[in-house]
């Protein structure tokens, strides 16, 4: 479904006055996200995971290599094709407070992708509202929430709205950028449950970006570790978590705190 092949990304370059220093964010990243599966992308801050997500979302262009979506090279799209592609790849963000426009109602926020892609989705204005209600119900909200503003919702509810917006254009690939990191654990559990349900119902393919190994282990079929812009380990979740091959993955797994007090690394020494 999504094939990332030898992708590199360098930032910086010439400006009108002065020259920026070039920074390599990704080098030679190769990753495969099979249809209907959930692939976890794990890395610490500065590992390049957000850059990779931006490239997949067509927000940034790769410097080298290519990203194939359903066989199409994303970097060779015309404007029109890119626009069409955007309906098929969607994103859910980390911060539920920043990811919704404070001055737009829930209805307008969720309906926006349908408005943008109205020619492809063939939905009239009235039909759009019905579809918004359907999406809200799907994520655990209701029609009564249609005309409210984001500040009237809790963090978990906002994240549900964000998920509804991401589903509005009926995407095939969903990029989840730390979707539960800003939430309390009890809310995180609700959102993770919602995500697994949606995946089962809609047959979504997801790229799940996170620094939380426990969450990735819980929700992903496959996992890749990103370190300094390189993939250091890739495989099925079971393989990687039980028998990591790279030093980095081993170190990270060892550093991961364990909720079982008998298995504390401090106690182990």
């Amino acid at each position, binding site marked *: 479904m999504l094939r990332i092949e030898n992708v590199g990304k360098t930032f910086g370059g010439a*400006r*009108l*006055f002065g020259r920026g220093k070039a920074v390599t964010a990704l080098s030679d990243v190769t990753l495969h996200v099979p249809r209907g599966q959930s692939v976890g992308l794990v890395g610490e801050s500065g590992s390049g995971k957000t850059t990779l997500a931006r490239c997949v*979302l*067509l*927000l940034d262009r790769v410097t080298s290599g290519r990203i194939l979506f359903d066989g199409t090279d994303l970097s060779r799209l015309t404007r029109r094709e890119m*626009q069409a592609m*955007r*309906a098929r*790849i*969607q*994103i859910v*963000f*980390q*911060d539920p*407070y*920043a*990811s*919704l*426009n*404070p*001055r*737009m109602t829930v209805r307008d926020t969720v309906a*926006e*992708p349908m408005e*943008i*892609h109205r020619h492809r989705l063939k939905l009239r204005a009235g039909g759009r509202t019905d579809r918004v209600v359907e999406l809200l119900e799907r994520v655990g909200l209701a029609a009564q929430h249609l005309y409210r503003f984001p*500040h*009237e*919702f*809790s*963090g978990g509810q906002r994240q549900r709205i*964000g998920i509804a*917006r*991401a589903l*509005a*254009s009926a995407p095939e690939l969903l990029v989840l950028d730390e979707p539960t990191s800003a939430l309390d654990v009890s809310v995180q559990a609700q959102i993770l449950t919602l995500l697994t349900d949606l995946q089962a119902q809609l047959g979504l393919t997801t790229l799940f970006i996170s620094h939380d190994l426990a969450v990735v282990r819980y929700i992903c079929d496959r996992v890749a570790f990103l370190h300094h812009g390189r993939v250091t380990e890739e495989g099925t979740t079971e393989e990687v978590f039980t028998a990591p091959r790279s030093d980095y993955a081993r170190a990270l797994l060892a550093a991961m705190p364990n909720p079982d007090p008998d298995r504390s690394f401090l106690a182990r020494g």
Partner: protein
Amino acid sequence: MSASLPRRRSGLRRGFYRFRQSVLSMAGLAVVMVLLLVAVCGPWIAPYPQDLSGAVHTAIRFQPPGPAHWFGTNELGQDVFSLVLAGTRISLLSGIAVVAIGSAVGVLIGAVAGFFGGLIDDGLMRLVDLVLTIPSLILAMAVAAALGPGIVNMIAAIALSWWPGYARLVRAEVMAKKNEAFVVASTAAGAGVVRLLWRHILPNVLSPVIVKMSLDVGFAVLTVASLGFIGIGVRPPAAEWGTLLAVARGNIPDYWWTAIFPGLAIFLAVFAFNLLGDGLRDLLDPKARR
């Protein structure tokens, strides 16, 4: 750490509450309202309308303030109260015009620079830096001197030095908002430039612009008066506060009222807009609400 769920709404509500509680902000609003009213119908409510068209009464020169002439009369025997009332229109109108033009141009340039970034941004911002190297009063003086006298020229001259402030403000705000998740989400969903700017970014940068505008009307009025005082801009007999004061300078200390009242009018107008702007800042700008 506390639950921040209803923060924004209660923040706004608290802002309104504090604005109403603040005697000063309310006083500023009231004075601004009165000034706007006077600006609209000043010439009609002036007790001596003929003085506004340059009538001269040598018999009643330099009458001190009294029941017939509340603010006294000037060296031409004209009623100072009528002149000050009439001056409101020119001062406020030019002040508002300057801010309107300056903010329109500045918001446009700032939004373009902040949104597109790169070379466009570099170029526009160097231009802004450049215009800001000459203090606005001096720049306006030079431009007005080059353009020649007249209200329109004066407004143009001041507006030319006024837009960079807005451009800087809006650019910074747009750049901050551009990277907010909700804008990126809309970009990823395929929204175009117009939709992003118009629906997502600009509505969310409006508050600081409005605050700056209300503060700036006061300073624009002040600049108009300053140019009048220097002798650029409005020429007598058209009543303008700064010009009135410049003429009256020669009359102090004996005929102090000819200078005091136009001066107080300028002060009152600027002060009122500043109080209003300060109150609005408390209301709209959460960063300043402490």
